[in-house]
């Protein structure tokens, strides 16, 4: 690896300001620091620093997403072969390879487009390249339906990076979760292509589905009044849905990684789930009330804990709500923020007839309100400090 270090060290003067390749400075720096932790030492303040840095943090989050990604690939194959009725005759690896070939291009597009823009902005601003997109670039494919055209993935990613992040000043400054911005962009810009029943299961042009095939997600089915999913399938993830969101097991594995390393906030995870459970119970209580259409009544009556294993709830609670930048930043605020996400997600999911999924909108909404929550928590803190001063005076 010495030749690599030598290469980067030798080329360093060439990318400095005023030198010939100055426009490659951020790219050079990005790759160099990716391969080698810089030798820069502390010049002010503390002489020693923790070994953790943003690269370590972000790579752990990416690692925690790997189970969901791998399972998502498998499930894409599974759903495909199930739809064409060849599930029994197809082996595990064929299923996985089919999914891999479907999912990988989406991942590549997301990273290439996102990192490209990230590099360009870093160079324009004269900043170092930020690691934030390493996570966003993985989250975006995982929350896409598998049949999303690649050009849409590219546009959505570009929109998310530019308007979701860079306009605010880059990683650490954004108000909304960039990956969810990408998803919301597609949802509102291309509603015809992004909802309905045709996008969740990968089908070739010549594939003929079996008679019973609808392609609908369980939530869409439930909203239409027919509850016919198996709890085990929903828990293990063998249901149609966005690539990474279906398997509660894979998501729990990721959650374990985030909690063991302490990177994800357990307060947000717990409070989001608590909010979802409580809203689910409340809806259960109103399931028998008059005036509900039969479809709504069925949705209201669905056991509250089914909400946790269906749709994007688990994925959102573990990986999206916990984004430290767009979440509430005070400890008390985190409880409120997560709890309201849980409440809103289930509320939107069940009450809103147009779209039987509420996690994305709930998180984006609470991202918007997180600064307000923090503001009041901080005001409370200040008030307490003032009281202390008055007491001692």
């Amino acid at each position: 690896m010495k030749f690599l270090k030598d290469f980067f060290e030798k080329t360093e003067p060439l990318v400095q300001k005023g030198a010939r390749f100055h426009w490659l400075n951020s790219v050079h720096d990005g790759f160099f620091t990716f391969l080698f932790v810089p030798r820069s030492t502390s010049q002010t303040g503390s002489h020693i620093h923790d070994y953790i840095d943003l690269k370590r943090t972000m790579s752990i989050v990416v690692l925690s997403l790997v189970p969901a990604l791998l399972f998502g690939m498998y499930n894409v194959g599974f759903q495909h072969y199930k739809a064409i009725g060849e599930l029994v005759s197809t082996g595990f690896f064929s299923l996985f390879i089919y999914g891999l070939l479907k999912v990988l291009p989406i991942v590549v597009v997301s990273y290439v487009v996102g990192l490209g823009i990230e590099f360009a902005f870093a160079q324009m601003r004269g900043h170092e390249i930020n690691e934030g997109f390493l996570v966003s670039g993985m989250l975006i494919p995982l929350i896409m339906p598998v049949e999303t055209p690649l050009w849409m993935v590219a546009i959505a990613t570009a929109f998310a990076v530019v308007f979701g992040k860079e306009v605010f000043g880059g990683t650490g400054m954004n108000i909304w979760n960039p990956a969810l911005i990408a998803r919301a962009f597609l949802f509102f810009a291309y509603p015809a292509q992004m909802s309905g029943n045709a996008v969740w299961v990968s089908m070739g042009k010549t594939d003929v589905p079996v008679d019973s095939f609808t392609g609908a997600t369980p939530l869409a089915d439930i909203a239409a009044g027919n509850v016919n999913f198996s709890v085990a399938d929903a828990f293990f993830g063998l249901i149609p849905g966005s690539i990474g969101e279906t398997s509660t097991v894979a998501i729990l594995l990721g959650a374990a990684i985030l909690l063991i390393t302490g990177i994800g906030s357990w307060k947000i995870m717990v409070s989001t789930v608590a909010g979802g459970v409580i809203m689910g119970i409340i809806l259960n209580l109103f399931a028998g009330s008059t005036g509900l259409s039969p479809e709504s009544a069925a949705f209201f009556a669905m056991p509250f804990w089914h909400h946790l294993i269906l749709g994007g709830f688990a994925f959102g609670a573990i990986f999206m709500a916990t984004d430290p930048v767009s979440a509430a930043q005070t400890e008390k605020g985190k409880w409120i923020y997560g709890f309201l996400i849980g409440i809103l997600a289930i509320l939107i999911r069940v009450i809103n007839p147009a779209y039987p999924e509420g996690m994305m909108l709930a998180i984006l909404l609470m991202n918007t309100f997180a600064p307000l929550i923090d503001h009041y928590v901080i005001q409370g803190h200040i008030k307490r400090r003032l009281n202390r001063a008055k007491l001692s005076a």
Partner: protein
Amino acid sequence: MSEVIKLKKGLDIKLKGSAEPVMEVVPVPSSVALKPTDFPGLTPKLVVKQDDVIQVGDVIFYDKYHPEVVFTAPAGGKVASINRGERRRILEVVISTDPGSGSVQFRQADPQNLSAEEIKEQLLKSGLWPFIKRRPYGTIALPQEQPRDIFISTFDTAPLAPDYNFIMEGQLETFQTGIHALARLTHGKIYLGVSKTSVFTNIKQVEIRQFTGPHPAGNAGVQIHHISPVNKGEVVWTVNPQDVLFIGRLFETGKVDFTRIIALTGSEVEQPKYLQTILGTSVTSITERRLKKTGYSQRIISGNVLTGEKVKPQNFLGFYDAQVTVIPEGDEYELLGWATPGVKKFSASRTYLSRLFPRKNYILDANLHGGERAFVLSDQYRKVLPMDILPVHLLKAILANDLDKMEQLGIYEVIEEDMALCEFVCTSKIKVQSILRNGINTVIKELG
């Protein structure tokens, strides 16, 4: 036993190279120095010129805005040089020592028989006043002010910090004399923060409070916060235990005696131990022939690894420092360092394997281990700051130059050392201490 205050938040960084309880008396160094840069916010006015012959206790410079606050020579001899930096700012006044030189005579008296005014005058004239620091701000106490209380922490929890129980051996009576003097200067109390096992528990004229918990439990700022916090408009003073000895000696002997025991520590030290030397001694006198010979570069720190100052062998120790730490510089690239399992890498986070297999102690170098970023994680600082303060929001208020918020969020209660651990644990490598000092300077400038 007195009240015990148990602190949970904080972090003990277990470094290699703590000082053995062995004392070595270092011969008088050939040169010592006083550095105006050791005092934040000070504008020095020089009294001596190069080649002036001086005695121990002669005035070297004074504070332009408080001329009664003078700084005196820790050793007698000749003013060898006055080193200046940018815009002719005085960096250090170097004295080449002469063991035969005399000492300025001050009043020798039991402080219990003196009035507050007499004690104050003696401390000011002898140059011992600058050892008294004030909160808010951590700057030198103002002679005209009445502190609400005085706080002395008798134990240091910083990494590899000296053990004052050991240093105080045979000097407790002098310490008591110093306490008697200080007690005259406040209508309030003198609070002594002590650790679980402490030789200070029999000191009189003080209120004793025991603290347990990880660093920064030994910081005066943290102890003040838990005993009786500083509110807007209030002033308390803090003094280091060894500096109380200076005060005690002054009244017992009528002379200033800046003999100080320092701990020479760190993984790069051949034999970490205690050295008896004098204030402002040259770094060489401490480190020469005492460091390991290595192929890589070393960093010498006057003070501890969290708050100390980087010095070179030709420099001098800081005015308040009772510790010298030597660690590897760490100015080397590390291939994919952020991706390694990290069995040997100490981290307050749980992202390295060292968490599962903790070692007795670690070697940490001065590398930043990553690039500087914007604030991303929100819960790291809080875990290492045992105070009712929102550290990230305080820092953001400083960055936004929002004076009201700085006040409301508690800038009067903290100085750099209290938030040094925040800087250590920071994922984004934010320069917490320098931001905080900038904020304090802004507050001093705007509000006085």
